[in-house]
């Protein structure tokens, strides 16, 4: 099979499209981010966040840690990743 410059071009376009399909854009802590499609649990794990003190607000609803695997993130979702800190 011969790789002409044109076929390489189309392969690149094809793979890029697949990556585009797998990625979604959501808002995390006020900033838009491209993330892999998946659950809250997946995102937390990909970002290597410390889970024990993490509070997740998903589209204005608190999602408890045991339900993180149940929520699949969708394009345009708004996520707040929060924690308690020192304050007066």
């Amino acid at each position, binding site marked *: 099979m011969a790789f002409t410059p044109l076929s390489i071009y189309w392969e690149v376009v094809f793979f890029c499209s697949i990556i585009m399909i797998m990625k979604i854009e959501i808002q995390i*802590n006020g900033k838009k981010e491209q993330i892999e499609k998946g659950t809250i649990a997946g995102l937390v794990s990909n970002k290597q966040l410390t889970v024990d003190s993490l509070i997740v607000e998903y589209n204005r609803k608190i999602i408890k840690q045991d339900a993180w695997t149940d929520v699949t993130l969708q394009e345009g979702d708004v996520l707040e990743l929060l924690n*308690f*800190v020192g304050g007066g």
Partner: protein
Amino acid sequence: MQEDVLSIGGHEFSSRLFTGTGKFAAKDWIPRMLQGSRSEMITVALRRIDQGGTTEKILDYIPEDVVLLPNTSGARTADEAVRVARIAREAGCGNFIKIEVITDMRYLMPDNHETLLATEILAKEDFVVLPYVLPDLTLAKKLEEAGAAAIMPLGSPIGSNRGIETKELIGLLIEICKVPVVVDAGIGRPSHAAEAMEMGADAVLVNTAIATAKDPAQMGRAFSLAVQAGRLAYLAQMGQQSDTANPSSPLTGFLGS
């Protein structure tokens, strides 16, 4: 003698010193400070995590028998304060909430109007609402009607350590309000706390002055003693002040007369 306890939101406090978790040089000062001060209620704040760093496990430093008082700092409107309060409760911090709505970043003056709006909403949702306000008697009455569990007037700007500069106005609140008055912000030294308690304040909230001391545990104890002294003096009912001297010893029967 009956124990002098302060009741707020169905909870009884033996200590009238409330504390905060901000500004400690190291978090492990917090449990030591709580031991020294015997404070039974402490504030925490809610923030976005630092995605690059680790999450702060502030709650790990607070013993379970200490009541958490999450604040709504960072909120600029009533709606934002309500949102923070709901998150804090859902996250397991209990029913207590200190409403703090601030837009003025130089003096950190609370927005009394937005604070009242937030109090009205949250009290209906069974929160124990402690609004942080400028001492305004008319507003305090409205807060009471709205269901505030206590009123928290500021002594002077947050973190300023300037003491009770709003003394006369706080005095009015203490006289008229039916709910407890907790003097919050600006209390810089134990004598300020004692002064508030002598005036008849039900409690004080101190963060900066304790947290930024070289030894927060010992400063916590110093504040605890000052609060107790001020409270005892208030209950004992102090004598009258006068412009001229009133001799403490009899003016008759001098040896030389």
